[in-house]
């Protein structure tokens, strides 16, 4: 059964359905409804909810809860995610699972609260200090958000890594019909690494500190091996009207939605254009995009930023075909007509 629900509230409900046992957050627009939703729902279910003193507090509470092997989530928006970077780096090398949602807003700095995709580099290229990448999933609809949040918990458990989901204020605030999976009780499968009290076993230590260079190198090799596995197994994308597309538009999340409408209109006008929408921003779908680049005549990248994902598109295609960019910054959201005009400029 489908219910009409706001994106941010759907994030909360999806996490609850996935068995999220603890939520820690801090108010920041445009994601605050997740915090409010969890403050209503979690205590009623006997699960943990804390409104933290800051995003630093929230992510370190996530870190602590994650050390016990339970399912835990925080949600934030761009400046809040910047504050969290210290702990995210610690969590990555500590090999503990958690889910982090970034409902991006206009930046840099305090920016504004309008939809934007300016955090792509921070999300996909590491974000904090040290060598790491996190799995990054980017939905374009509320239903896809729900499905990816549920999956994010499984992926976090599978790789013992933070899994991030990115969207923007548009998907956070929009209301759409959405179906949820069955409610899952929080479960603690056997996790021999978790901190649960050293009863009948050697003590467990969770740390990201390794003073010896060789030892730290070994942990880095282990982390990189996990990231290689993620790259191998977790590439996700979707294609729309790609049959015989001479112009391929690459866009994700909200930009992907807008482009889809523009592509439909362009096709109706007889233009051979299609949409390639990456869903896993890390791992980026390099291989599929490389194939596409070998048959298409040109690529247009559309982002709500100055152009960040375009660097990965160029890497995938090895610059073997013309690649143009259409983007809006500062929370300005283009209309499908704006994208259509751009498409027409390129194919004329």
């Amino acid at each position: 059964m489908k219910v009409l629900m706001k994106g941010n509230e759907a994030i909360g409900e999806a996490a609850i359905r996935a068995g999220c046992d603890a939520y820690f957050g801090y108010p920041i627009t445009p994601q605050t409804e997740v915090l409010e939703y969890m403050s209503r729902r979690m205590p009623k279910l006997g699960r943990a909810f804390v409104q933290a003193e800051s995003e630093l507090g929230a992510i370190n509470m996530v870190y602590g809860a994650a050390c016990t092997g339970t399912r835990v989530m925080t949600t934030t928006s761009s400046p809040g995610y910047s504050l969290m970077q210290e702990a995210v780096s610690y969590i990555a090398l500590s090999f503990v699972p958690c889910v982090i949602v970034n409902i991006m807003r206009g930046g840099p700095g305090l920016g504004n609260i309008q939809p934007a995709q300016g955090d792509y580099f921070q999300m996909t290229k590491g974000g904090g200090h040290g060598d790491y990448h996190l799995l990054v999933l980017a939905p374009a609809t509320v239903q896809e958000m729900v499905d990816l949040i549920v999956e994010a918990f499984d992926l976090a458990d599978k790789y013992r890594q933070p899994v991030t989901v990115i969207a923007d204020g548009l998907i956070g605030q929009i209301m759409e019909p959405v179906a949820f999976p069955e409610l899952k009780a929080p479960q603690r499968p056997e996790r021999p690494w978790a901190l649960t009290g050293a009863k009948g076993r050697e003590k467990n230590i969770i740390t990201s500190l390794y003073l010896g260079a060789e030892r730290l190198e070994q942990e880095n090799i282990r982390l990189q091996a996990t990231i290689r596995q993620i790259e191998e197994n977790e590439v996700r994308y979707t294609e729309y009207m790609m049959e015989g597309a001479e112009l391929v538009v690459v866009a994700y999340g909200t930009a992907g939605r807008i482009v889809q409408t523009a592509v439909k209109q362009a096709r109706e006008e007889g233009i051979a254009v299609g949409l390639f929408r990456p869903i896993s921003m890390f791992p980026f779908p390099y291989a599929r995009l490389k194939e596409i680049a070998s048959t298409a005549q040109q690529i247009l990248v559309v982002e709500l930023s100055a152009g960040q994902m375009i660097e990965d598109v160029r890497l995938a295609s090895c610059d073997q075909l013309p690649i143009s960019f259409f983007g809006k910054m500062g929370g300005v959201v283009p209309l499908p007509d704006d994208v259509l005009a751009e498409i027409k400029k390129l194919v004329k």
Partner: protein
Amino acid sequence: MTQEAELVFSRPESLSDVVTHYCPGCIHGIVHRLIAEVMDELGIRERTIGIAPVGCSVLAYNYFECDFAEAAHGRAPAMATGMKRVEPDLTIFTYQGDGDLASIGTNEVIHAAARGENITTIFINNAVYGMTGGQMAPTTLPGMVTTSSPYGRDVKTQGYPVRVCELLSQLDGAAYIVRRTAYKPAEVRKLRRAIKTAFQVQMAGLGFSLVEVVSNCPTNWGMTPKESLKFVEERMVDYYPLGDFRVKDEVKDLR
């Protein structure tokens, strides 16, 4: 061994049998042992999680036989909050120095106390950043020479020390806030009792508990261990008076 021989002193089960990295004369070793003794006495080693800070005691997890996590600098009380909220039956303690707790981590400790989190913090105050080589700490005494206050801490430009117990004792969520020291055996015994009470406060679910230990740093103070204990007794305790700063009525009932 004769029939009358009785074992009266041994290593606590909760204390690991390893060589420590602490400098000779440092009080960290005493406090570690007391925590381990209390864990043994309360029978909680197998259901305790410790959280180590960043600072000299960054490797504390190597010295206790219970589960342990290593926090980012100053964030241990937030991490402890996350653990305790999902594992309320476990005993969670943080072990933090003055740079970690009273400078970079003030926000986390104040709000953990304000929320009345059922966690215990052991706070080692030796008025100096030890691990990085003796820089001025938030608790460095006025006039005290450190590597970053080479002319002595000038309160006009470098501000005044932070008295953590006095600050936290204003918060209603705090159940047990006391300051002790360890420069002589009588003080060590008082400190042991306070650590035990702090853990009992947590086990009884009464709220946030913190034991500050006015401590020493012979290495970075440029003193012999004995001189450093004299400095604790004469100068440190003068600025950081020992005593109970907040003890909720329910805590008194515990004893």
